[in-house]
């Protein structure tokens, strides 16, 4: 419990809080925009700030210069460090340069296409070719990196990673800034940020609205309700690991106050940790888990806290002095009680498989073996259904079912208190996505990426090993966790916009008569299978090892396939079937299409 503990805990709380709040804000925007896109609408995008083009130009110049300078000095500083760090930084910068390169070609081609002339537009008939060429270059750079052992002097690979990448990346950033600068029109430019400003304006509006309390309501409880609903949503994030354990070796006494006195705190963040760590076992000293509180009860804390949130809804429903609110609060509490059982029991099979209730142990198990979705597929669906029901989201949103009980438990809320309910709902969504990721999608683990670097293996056979510096591995893990959480949130939004609401009796029936027995069956089957595996010889263990590594390969291939499909889908030319024959279509055709002034949707 020294100064380091408080410093790092404070930093971790900051990261987690910022992530939760920003994700909730993004989800508020994303849900509305996404629903619009699903329903063939434009969605809310009217909020706009008009900036003079000059201000934007100055902003782009400053940002571009800052980014290019930061990248350049990053490469420069890395060139003074040890060879592995230098190689990793050079590799990252080279990949960044390739990325900026093909995206830049696409951007230039796009602007040329609007004019109908230009070198890229004439020589590249299909934009997808640029994407495929860029992917090939990415793969080539990776292949180049694989061939570098770190011992050789000179050579093409080292020239790329030491010189070309670190020079090209900042240069391309500067070029991109210049290109953006030229495409900004003079005169005022409307900034909409894809409709994000609309969500922001709605949030501001909510804060300034009248805070209405019904005359006969219990004033204290009415105000307490949203607080109780919001608070547990935040604190659950404390036990979720958002990255692998960082090993720090301070070149110092190891005591915070002494280091502070000697002015050595800064050196800790400047790379004075060991560039490599071993694959197994966490460092003995200076281990900083990227998790606010590494509780030994782990996920049980989450169950306890997430269940508390419903008290807010129940209190809100009771204190509002409204029958509909009361019904909504009752529905919320009974739904929570029903689904909390299935929620907890659905994960018991996972605990048995992972042999732990701690989130970081679960992630390590999944990193070494297979992701949870492969070993506990039934539990995944049960947990997903139960957690959606816990969050009171569609199709389980009977507590706020507007067609029956207007708005349910927050019917009598307005202004910021209503905003807190809504915000709490989105934070709960982010939490449930984070838990889903941690338990079923490998948390911060990426396929074949371990603490010591990339190891592509199938069972005992190691096909390829690449040592990566500790810093890069940690960074990839953190990015992977936040990225997976966002993707899961996004998928959960889709569930909301796809499925109609269940009737209340159907919800109860599903919870008690389907999810609960299924969870119990899952526990029994898991137990039997685990016993069989334990009892069987090492041959079965080896087969399972191969299967587990194969599942990691499947994940990798699926990820790559999804990325390629997304990229080529985005760049594919739009399909048009024909035009409607109507008088206005005829006139539009004569006028050369519907007249459109510039808009940023």
């Amino acid at each position, binding site marked *: 419990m020294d100064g380091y503990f408080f410093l790092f805990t404070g930093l971790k709380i900051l990261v987690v809080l910022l992530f939760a709040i920003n994700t909730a804000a993004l989800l508020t925007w994303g849900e509305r925009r996404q629903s619009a896109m699903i329903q063939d609408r434009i969605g809310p995008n009217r909020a706009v700030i008009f900036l003079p083009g000059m201000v934007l130009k100055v902003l782009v110049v400053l940002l571009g210069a800052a980014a290019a300078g930061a990248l350049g000095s990053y490469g420069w500083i890395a060139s003074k460090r040890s060879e592995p760090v230098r190689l990793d930084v050079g590799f990252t910068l080279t990949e960044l340069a390739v990325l900026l390169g093909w995206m830049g070609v696409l951007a230039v081609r796009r602007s040329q296409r609007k004019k109908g002339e230009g070198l890229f537009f004439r020589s590249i008939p299909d934009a997808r070719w640029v994407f495929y060429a860029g992917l090939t270059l990415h793969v080539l750079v990776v292949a180049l990196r694989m061939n570098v052992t770190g011992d050789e002097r000179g050579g093409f690979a080292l020239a790329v990673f030491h010189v070309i990448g670190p020079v090209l990346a900042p240069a391309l950033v500067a070029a991109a800034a210049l290109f953006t600068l030229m495409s900004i029109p003079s005169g005022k430019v409307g900034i909409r940020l894809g409709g994000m400003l609309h969500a922001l304006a709605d949030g501001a509006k909510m804060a300034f609205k009248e805070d209405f309390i019904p005359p006969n309501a219990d004033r204290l409880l009415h105000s307490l309700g949203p607080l109780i609903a919001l608070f547990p949503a935040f604190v659950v994030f404390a036990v979720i690991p958002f990255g692998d354990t960082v090993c720090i070796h301070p070149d110092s006494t190891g005591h915070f106050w002494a280091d502070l006195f000697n002015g050595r705190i800064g050196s800790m963040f400047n790379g004075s940790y060991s560039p490599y760590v071993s694959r197994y076992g966490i460092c003995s000293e200076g281990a900083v888990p990227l998790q606010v509180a590494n509780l030994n009860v782990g996920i049980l804390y989450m169950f306890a806290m997430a269940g508390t949130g419903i008290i807010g809804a129940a209190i809100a429903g009771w204190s509002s002095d409204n029958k509909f609110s009361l019904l909504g609060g009752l529905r919320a509490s009974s739904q929570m009680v029903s689904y909390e059982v299935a929620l907890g029991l659905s994960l018991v099979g996972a605990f048995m498989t992972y042999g732990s209730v701690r989130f970081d142990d679960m992630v390590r198990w999944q990193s070494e073996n297979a992701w949870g979705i492969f070993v506990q597929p039934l539990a995944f669906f049960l947990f997903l259904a139960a957690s959606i029901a816990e969050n009171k989201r569609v199709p389980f949103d009977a507590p706020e079912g507007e067609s029956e009980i207007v708005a349910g438990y927050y019917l009598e809320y307005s202004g910021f208190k209503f905003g807190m309910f809504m915000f709490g709902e989105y934070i709960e969504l982010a939490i449930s996505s984070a838990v889903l990721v941690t338990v079923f999608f490998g948390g911060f683990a990426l396929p074949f990426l371990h603490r010591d670097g990339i190891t592509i293996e199938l069972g005992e056979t190691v096909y390829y090993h690449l040592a990566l510096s500790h810093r890069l591995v940690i960074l990839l893990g953190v990015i992977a966790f936040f990225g997976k959480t966002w993707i899961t949130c996004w998928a959960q939004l889709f569930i909301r916009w796809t499925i109609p609401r269940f009737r209340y009796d159907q919800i109860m029936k599903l919870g008690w008569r389907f999810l609960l027995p299924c969870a119990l069956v899952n526990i029994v089957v898991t137990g039997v299978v685990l016993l069989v595996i334990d009892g069987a010889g090492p041959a079965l263990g080896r087969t399972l090892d191969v299967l587990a590594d194969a599942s990691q390969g499947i994940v990798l291939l699926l990820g790559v396939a999804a990325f390629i499909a997304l990229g080529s889908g985005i760049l594919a030319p739009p399909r048009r079937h024909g*035009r409607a024959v109507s008088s206005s279509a005829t*006139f539009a055709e004569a006028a050369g299409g519907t007249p459109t002034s510039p808009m940023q949707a």
Partner: protein
Amino acid sequence: MAIETSKGIIGKPVPRPKRPASTQAFVPEILKGMRVTMRHFFRNTKEVALDQRPDPTMASLDEGITTVSYPEQKRPYPERFRGLHRLTLREDGSPRCVACLCCSTACPAQCIHIVPAEYPEGDKRRGYERFPDQFVIDELRCIFCGFCVEACPCDAIRMDTGQHAAPYDSRDQFIFKKNLLMAAKARDGSRKSQNPRHEPGDPTHPGVDRDHSH
């Protein structure tokens, strides 16, 4: 409607919908539904982000977002679209209207109000024709039938502005006075009419009455 009696079920039994195991399991059905929503989402997001939306008027039945994003996008109106009124002007910038009240008489919605006035003493047109001291159209009452345009003997009122009534804040703003009507332009930007006008005193003018030719 099946009614159960002592003789058994009378009437036609209602067939229950078939629910095979794949439907009962719900998950495949959810995935099917999500395929549809995702297809719409990806296509629309891409088209909006890359500015590739189908033309809302020409391809209004195409897939994708074909909503007209007013006011950035405006539906092109047909050439003879009856829009807001305008009062056409003479060469000297005064209204062509001679305040004959034909339009207000023809108006089935009775939304045109004209107060005629005589030209001042010494004006060539005095005694020959009058001018509207006030010319008011309530665009909220107007049914855009175009009878006023048909009725006008002087081609003084036209509906060729190509503009529809915008949603103003109050009803007062829909009451268009003479100045506003005279300021409105035709779609080609002109405030005049294509038909030439012969003013009293012009060589081409047939004469103010039978006895006084010029």
